[in-house]
């Protein structure tokens, strides 16, 4: 038992508690949820000596200031964000000792969109169906973090990792596989997505990356009977503007899935900002 608390002094556009989500309940209508940039989340947890399933904060476009009621190791990964410990600039991507009551501040990212903050001991808000993740679609898990929140921190279980250099990211595209309903598109949807000039739409969120830059033509306009949809599915609504389903996506849908993003590339979607180019390639 630990009495340590993470105090939230300021938040940006959206800060949520995230872990690896709650897979295994999709047949009950429960989204998977979990950190959008799963690799960055896992790295942050490793750096502070936590188990991979520990919960931290996912911070959209910076703006977060926190402090702790007990000394802990912390790490910030993901977006390239200016980070200050008290009034001192500190690096992201490594474990930092955060003294009691010293503020840690995430500025606006220079590149990328989402940061992941880990605290040794993890955030131990009450789990729901085995996960502490905030699900922005279904409302499961804790509500989004607000200024003034006091989040409980657990007992440190391990020692911080030596400085770990994240692996170099693979090629900068979202690799696409054909979807189960590729034939509902007039033409090869993978080919059309690869050749198109797409950007990340302003209405993109944890539910989906909404693409702008054109529409895909539909070959069929009849209704598809509702079926299960998966993380990374590229869904084609009647308007023809594709959506890549991310962690908080609904578990079933009635619009055809014309392509599927390679799971290893999904972290990129977490780091796109509205207006950023989105490039696709065909999976081998």
């Amino acid at each position, binding site marked *: 038992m630990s009495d340590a608390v993470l105090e939230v002094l300021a938040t940006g556009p959206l800060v949520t508690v995230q872990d690896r989500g709650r*897979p*295994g*309940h*999709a*047949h*009950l*209508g*429960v989204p*998977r949820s979990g950190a959008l940039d799963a690799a960055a989340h896992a790295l942050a947890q490793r750096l502070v000596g936590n188990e991979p399933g520990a919960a931290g904060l996912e911070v959209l476009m910076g703006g977060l200031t926190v402090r702790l009621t007990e000394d802990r190791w912390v790490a910030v990964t993901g977006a390239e964000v200016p980070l200050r410990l008290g009034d001192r600039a500190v690096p992201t991507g490594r474990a930092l000792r955060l003294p009691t009551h010293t503020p840690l501040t995430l500025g606006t990212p220079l590149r990328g969109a989402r940061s992941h903050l880990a605290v040794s001991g993890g955030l131990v808000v009450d789990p*729901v*169906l085995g996960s502490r993740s905030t699900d922005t679609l*279904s*409302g*499961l898990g804790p509500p989004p973090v607000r200024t003034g929140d006091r989040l409980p921190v657990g007992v440190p279980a391990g020692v911080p990792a030596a400085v770990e250099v994240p692996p170099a990211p693979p090629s900068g595209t979202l690799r696409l*596989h*054909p*979807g*189960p309903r590729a034939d509902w598109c007039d033409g090869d949807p993978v080919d059309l997505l690869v050749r198109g000039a797409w950007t990340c739409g302003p209405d993109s969120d944890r539910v989906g990356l909404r693409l702008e830059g054109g529409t895909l033509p539909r070959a069929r306009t009849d209704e598809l*009977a*509702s*079926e*299960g*949809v*998966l*993380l*990374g*599915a590229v869904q084609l609504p009647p308007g023809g503007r594709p959506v890549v389903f991310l962690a908080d996506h*609904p*578990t*079933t*849908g009635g619009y055809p*899935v014309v392509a*599927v*993003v*390679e*799971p290893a590339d999904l972290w990129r979607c977490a780091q796109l900002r509205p207006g950023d180019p989105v490039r696709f390639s065909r*999976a081998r």
Partner: protein
Amino acid sequence: MTGPPAYRVVPCGPAALLVEVSDAPAALSLAEHLRAGLGATDVVPGARTVLVDGTERAPVEEALRRWDPATGTDPGPLVEVPVVYDGADLADVAEVWGCTLREVVERHTSLELVSAFCGFAPGFAYLSGAPEEWAVPRLASPRPRVPAGSVALADTWSAVYPTASPGGWRLLGRTDLALWDTRRTPPALLAPGTRVVFREVRA
């Protein structure tokens, strides 16, 4: 074996498959078969498909060979849903069905439905078993907020909204039953396979 196979397997990227079957009961039967035997991350029945997420193709093919679509599923638990039939769309449904308001209630309470699958929201069950000729269209534009416990129809499906949400289904009435409770196992009262009967109660 003769005749066309009872299913078709469609890949969904490197780690998932969609299996197409004939109808909702077959999807439910196959989902139970695959969930028991595969160790997949998620097995999601739909209206005519089963999504198998987090597994390779070979073990799914192997499990499919052991599936007999004629077996069906064991009857699930029966849940009786008490309903106050005072929904905003009762008159519209009566018009589509060409009957009186009283007959809408009588028809809806005469059915034994089965939860075919969940989706849209945690615990939102698509209840199948109403005849094809009772299909009703969804609203042209969804309501911004449908209260929790609303009993509703769309196409031939019935459902009860577990939580307040936007929604385009036709509202017949409301129930006080808790459809979703995370302290319960499973948290969904109407998990796939559950049999459901609606019973009229007074407000």
